[in-house]
């Protein structure tokens, strides 16, 4: 009996983290359709690039204004924070290209009952909801962001070593997972607060805080950004990896944070889904 229980637990665990290869085929099919659709609207590409350039210019001007009155911010100098802004912009690209058009639509679908159509599909609902849509034009944000980070490193006169680049690869992947987990948590809340269609606004509000190194903030905010809403791990840590100020144990901690965040988000999603009663409920 006990053994049987163990086995179901194990099966549950496998269910939780199983990623069938068919999922990848499905995703690539979705994304191909998406790309074909988006390619009809090429003017959007120009608009998207102009928008990003404008946002970057605003961010750099804001930074210049701060540095007009100081020489360091939270122990970081100007070009180091520009590296961070580049990372921020690259992550914004991931958010706008994948998360907002995909999982970001969930709150509205819970409200209207359209989620029914997702749940009857023979795929993992979370995976499907998360990656079903791809706004390819916003992928340019990733390129522009990394380009800016690269230029800032050049201005710093710092060439990252191979180890630092690998640390960056690890921490930026962890950052993407953390951002994703935050979105999953927010959207899961929509199952309880059905009337809150604009819950993504909460993300936009909080994520503003990731524009600057977490060390620049007063103690209470810093605590909030490191432990409670872990956005410090999304920009400060990968940027630290690039500029060579990251201690190895913090890099490993970032990976652990990402794992924990993902696990918690997945668990909350499953709890939330049980609450869903469908369009007629």
């Amino acid at each position, binding site marked *: 009996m006990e053994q049987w229980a163990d086995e179901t637990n194990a099966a549950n665990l496998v269910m939780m983290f199983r990623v069938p290869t068919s999922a990848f085929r499905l995703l690539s099919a979705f994304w191909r359709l998406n790309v074909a659709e988006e390619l009809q609207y090429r003017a959007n590409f120009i608009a998207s690039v102009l928008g990003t350039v404008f946002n970057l210019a605003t961010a750099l001007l804001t930074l210049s204004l701060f540095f007009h009155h100081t020489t360091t911010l939270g122990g970081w100098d100007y070009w180091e924070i520009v590296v961070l802004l580049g990372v921020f912009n690259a992550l914004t690209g991931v958010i706008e290209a994948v998360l907002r058009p995909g999982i970001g639509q969930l709150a509205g679908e819970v409200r209207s009952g359209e989620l029914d159509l997702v749940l009857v599909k023979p795929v993992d609902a979370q995976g499907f909801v998360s990656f079903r849509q791809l706004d390819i034009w916003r992928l340019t944000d990733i390129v522009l962001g990394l380009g800016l980070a690269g230029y800032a490193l050049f201005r710093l006169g710092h060439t990252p070593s191979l180890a630092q680049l690998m640390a960056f690869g690890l921490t930026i992947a962890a950052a993407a997972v953390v951002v994703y987990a935050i979105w999953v948590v927010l959207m899961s809340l929509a199952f309880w607060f059905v009337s809150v269609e*604009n819950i993504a606004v*909460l993300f936009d509000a909080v994520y503003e805080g990731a524009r600057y190194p977490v060390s*620049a903030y007063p103690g209470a905010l810093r605590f909030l950004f490191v432990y409670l809403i872990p956005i410090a791990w999304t920009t400060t840590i990968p940027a630290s990896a690039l500029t060579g100020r990251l201690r190895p144990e913090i890099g490993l901690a970032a990976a652990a944070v990402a794992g924990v965040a993902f696990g918690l988000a997945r668990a909350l999603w499953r709890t939330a889904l049980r609450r869903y009663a469908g369009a007629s409920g």
Partner: protein
Amino acid sequence: MIRRYAALIRNAWLVDLQYRASIVLWLLWGVTEPAIALGIWWAIAGDGSVAGYARADFARYFFAVMLINQLTIAWDSWYLDRWIRDGELNFRLARPLHPAHEAVAENLAYKARTASVILVVWLVVAVAWPAVRLPFAPGRWAITAVAVVLAAAMRFFISFTTGLLAFWTTRATAIMELHAGVSLFLAGRIAPLALLPPAVAGIAGVLWFRSMLAFPVDLLTGTVQGTDAILRGLGGQIVWLGVWILAYRVAWSRGIRKYGAVGG
């Protein structure tokens, strides 16, 4: 007209009541930007001061920004853009009341709710944190109220007029975003105008940006001193309000003639 407005505002108030949670989120979104700016200036000021602003001055400034920005904000370009593109403007045109009145009523109902929340939060915070307390000055508050009304009216016409551009272009809201980006600096959202390079602060004063936000904020915190400076500030607000009303009239009369409506 007063009865109509009472009905419109009541209606908007009740609609908002259904979306309380959403409004709280918009409110949070509105206060994080000044909160983060305050955090950064707080770090920069340290124990000294930046161009005459010590930590407590920044705290007062950005609390005033939170309140007055909420009191003067206008979302109308987004509404109009949708109304015009989806044809929702049609039934509004068929009513015996100009659509602008509905927008104004919504604006008032929304602000009454959100701004009072900020005011209460400010009062509570002020009990615990002396840095954000304002000196007791009813006369100054009365003048600030006038400046806030002028600023709110102007931002309403800016937003409404920009929204009307949807008659001609599909990117009216992008123009509004552009305006928001510029106002980040010129209206004093990211820093007091005194901290900007003098030339830039000068442009903000010549154009309408200072009148939008920075002037009422500086009035409230007491940075604007002397009858002369106050009258000049109010005068600037009135002039720019007039200009934007004019722009609105031109855009409305031209646009409505061009409007074909969906399916029309």
